[in-house]
């Protein structure tokens, strides 16, 4: 997903000399094609995320469309106020790219777990928030944010994600994408945990339940229409995200459901409790929070009884 996203940004940059990519001294083995092809549209800001973000805002105010690139929490939490004041408040065309949402850098420890990013970015007015499921969604998001005015946040997986679909006919910011329609239960998922959600859907199908499955490449603005339509159609909505249960997709969906008086039950699957002190890879850490396909299928079956 990461590589596909950068490839797409590179293609877009070749057509647009005002498109700029700035890295916070990360992207070894990923960004080389970009700096080799377009050295005048590439900067390494060094290990200085606050300045990277202010600089990006300054360049955007001069007419550039700027991508900032880093991993985990560095492009967001480290420079939150620069995003708020310099980028978002000025309506600056700055697209903040985080590689490695959730537990993608699991073994590296809690400093590298981006597990509150969606909530924090979602709370900022005038910031759109994206978490594509796979490389196809990531490419679509890359194209969309270049033309989307103002500041965007894009959370990416590191690679090897399961494809939700081969192509997207019509991608629109703020629209969820159905993978399959179903009955009784709808699974909403955002980001690269889609693979686990899809596995859960397959396991449920083996048990005679065909769940609806929807990806939310845009977390904000949320596709409220889709949430309400699913609330009418299904008995249960399950949100699935590799993110703290507070403030992410599940919370966003809960807000819509609470105000729509739909009466549909909601189960939010995500990271709960204290910071993760366990050491392990992404798959292992997902398992500690009930976020593997098997665990989610089991939980959903229980909820449907």
């Amino acid at each position: 997903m990461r590589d596909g996203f950068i490839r797409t940004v590179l293609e877009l940059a070749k057509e647009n000399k005002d498109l700029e990519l700035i890295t916070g001294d990360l992207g070894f083995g990923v960004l080389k094609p970009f700096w080799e092809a377009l050295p005048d549209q590439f900067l390494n800001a060094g290990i200085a995320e606050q300045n990277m973000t202010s600089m990006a805002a300054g360049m955007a105010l001069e007419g550039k469309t700027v991508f900032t690139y880093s991993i985990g929490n560095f492009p967001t939490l480290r420079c939150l106020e620069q995003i708020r004041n310099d980028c978002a408040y000025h309506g600056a065309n700055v697209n903040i790219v985080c590689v490695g949402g959730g537990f993608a850098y699991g073994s590296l420890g809690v400093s590298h777990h981006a597990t509150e990013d969606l909530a924090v970015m979602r709370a900022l007015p005038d910031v759109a928030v994206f978490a594509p499921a796979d490389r196809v969604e990531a490419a679509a998001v890359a194209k969309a944010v270049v033309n989307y005015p103002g500041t965007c946040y894009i959370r990416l997986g590191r690679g090897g994600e399961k494809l939700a679909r081969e192509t997207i006919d019509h991608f629109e910011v703020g629209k969820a994408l159905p993978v399959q329609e179903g009955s009784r239960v709808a699974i909403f998922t955002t980001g690269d945990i889609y693979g686990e959600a899809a596995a859960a859907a397959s396991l449920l199908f083996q048990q005679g339940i065909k769940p609806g499955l929807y990806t939310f490449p845009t977390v904000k603005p949320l596709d409220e229409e889709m949430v309400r339509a699913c609330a009418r159609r299904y008995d249960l909505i399950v949100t699935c995200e590799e993110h703290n249960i507070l403030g992410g997709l599940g919370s966003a969906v809960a807000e819509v459901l609470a105000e729509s008086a739909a009466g549909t039950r909601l189960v939010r699957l995500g990271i709960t409790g204290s910071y993760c002190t366990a050491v392990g890879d992404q798959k292992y850490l997902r398992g500690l929070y009930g976020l593997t396909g098997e665990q989610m299928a089991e939980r959903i079956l229980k909820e449907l009884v």
Partner: protein
Amino acid sequence: MTSEQLAWKICRHDVEMTHVSGGSHIGAVLSVADIMGVLYADVLHFRPEEPKWDGRDRFVLSKGHAGGALYAALAEQGFFPVEELLTYYRNESRLSGHVSHKVPGVDVSTGSLGHGLGMAVGMAIAAKQDKKTHRVFVVLGDGECNEGSVWEAAQAAVNYQLDNLVAIVDHNHMQSLDFCERTLSSAPMARKWAGFGWNVMEVDGHDHAALRAAMTSSRQGIPTVIVAHTIKGHRIPFMEQDILWHYRFPHTGWEYDCAVNALHGCKPAGAEDPYTPNGIESPVLPDENADIFRDHTMGATYEPAWFRLQEVTK
């Protein structure tokens, strides 16, 4: 309008603006008024009737709490009516206490310290990339230089050889609660910037000829910083170097009357006062209870046992 006239008018407007609104930071405005006067009378290229003119020099007031000085300069130069200045801080006004880019002539909103230099660096990079010849000016406070992000940006400006960037540090040695040296010392200020690789000029920040010369000079391939030695509260003796006036506004009575008359005592020829054209004839004077010429610094009453506060260098 000469820079001296403009600087004086900035002071006069801001005494009125803070008096009417109860707004803060008159001490910071008085400190930076000469810098702003020289910039807006003699140095910056701009078109008031076309605020977004692409050939304009860019200006960032990174110490956004001195926004009243920028608003007064812009109004005097015709970006918006001078009468609007008295809406400062008011409901439905455009003139927020800290600088707002919603005001004609303002490129960048500030107010949280440590953002402006980074944004100015980005603007200067964009100008270089697009082969534009305008310059980018940014004014920082010395207290602001506590912020680590200032030094991130300082490294970047040198790294990208931004000789189209001029930073001016309003070095009045005071911040919020005390003198800088007794808070989180940035001394030696000039040597720090030099150590980062900047072209450093040190000037008297109230000497217009010196400011003008420094602002119009540059060195190829490196950014310029002007460390402008200033006095917080300059032009109004009872406000000078009294931290009280970082937040306090001139109240009705001796504070306002004496502030106005202090300004009239140093009014350059040709500068007109729209509020009190001839000063105040029978001013209220401070009595023995007036909070004046007292030490309001934190260091006056703060005596930690385990370390010694730095010496103040005024």
